[in-house]
């Protein structure tokens, strides 16, 4: 199997380059990450992030044959050769496939990703009805791998100001939570020409999400909530 990988070490390289690796598949190689791990044993200068290897930590997001995805979830059988691996597009490269996520997480923190409720908490827990809990499905599962934001042209254009699909999905997760009491403040924060309204409904985010979530639907719901709020 031939894999072409983006290589860049800012300490030694002037320019990034693509390096080809030929590796024979073994019986245990099922996912792309399995091969990458074996490549790492052969060439320990190759850098990439990985942790849980089962699509939960979201650390091995990369551009695989032109589409963002998680190496641990991508089956080798569905990939065309040569497999071309690049870092997440639009993100500053630290080294090889490792990108700088500082700005991405700054956006995530800016939407205050936690319940805000100043009311005295009940003795045990803040209860929700099954219907209220149902509204969080499709929102809370986001693992912040950044596949969506790094595949969003609006985010490529304004990464410093547009919150991006991942941050907005998380914002809607708390807007739609009935236990949260800061909905108005959250909506007021998002009602901005850059933070929310740079979204052009391109929907790359929904198409590429490895957890099959729909940030573009969440963004639409935030816009509708803003319309209702202003009415």
């Amino acid at each position, binding site marked *: 199997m031939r894999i072409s990988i983006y290589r860049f070490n800012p300490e030694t390289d002037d320019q990034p380059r693509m390096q080809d690796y030929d590796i024979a598949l073994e019986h245990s190689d099922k996912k792309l990450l399995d091969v990458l791990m074996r490549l790492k044993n052969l060439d320990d200068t190759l850098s990439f992030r990985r942790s849980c290897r089962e699509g939960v930590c979201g650390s091995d997001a990369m551009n695989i044959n032109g589409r963002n995805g998680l190496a641990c979830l991508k089956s080798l059988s569905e990939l065309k050769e040569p497999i071309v691996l690049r870092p997440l597009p639009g993100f500053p490269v630290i080294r090889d496939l490792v990108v700088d996520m500082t700005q991405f997480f700054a956006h995530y923190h800016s939407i205050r990703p936690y319940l805000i409720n100043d009311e005295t908490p009940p003795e045990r827990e803040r209860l929700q009805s099954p219907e209220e809990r149902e509204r969080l499905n499709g929102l809370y599962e986001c693992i912040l791998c950044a596949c969506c934001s790094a595949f969003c042209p*609006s985010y490529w254009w*304004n990464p410093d100001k547009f919150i991006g699909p991942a941050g907005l999905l998380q914002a809607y997760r708390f807007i739609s939570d009935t236990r949260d009491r800061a909905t108005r403040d959250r909506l007021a924060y998002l*009602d*901005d*020409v850059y933070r929310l309204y*740079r979204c*052009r409904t391109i929907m790359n985010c929904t198409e590429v999400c490895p957890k099959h979530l729909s940030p573009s639907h969440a963004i639409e719901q935030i816009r509708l909530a*803003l*319309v209702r709020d*202003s009415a």
Partner: protein
Amino acid sequence: MRLFLGQRAWMLQRVTAVVLLLFVATGAAMLVVGPPMTYDRWFALVTSPHGSVLIAVLFGALCLHGWIGLRDIVLDYVKPLWVRLPLLSLVAVLLIGIMIRVVLTLAAHMTIAG
């Protein structure tokens, strides 16, 4: 200014899109179903009081829709402030100019027709 930012602008863009769609659909229907359109008939239609108001509404919607769309393109692609501000001003002046021209033309013809 809030009318042209955030949620209001987004809403305005959609409302004007619906207005433009209605005009396009009505215009297409008139051409397809109605009697053949001649210059005299078109002139009478545009210079009638109702026609003039509708044409003004059409261009108003077009200019507002155009402003939000062009502003979005400038915000997305033009980063340096010294390019962005003149460019936005130019777009605004052009659109306001178009609107003034339309209103003046309609007013002149309405006077003649009247």
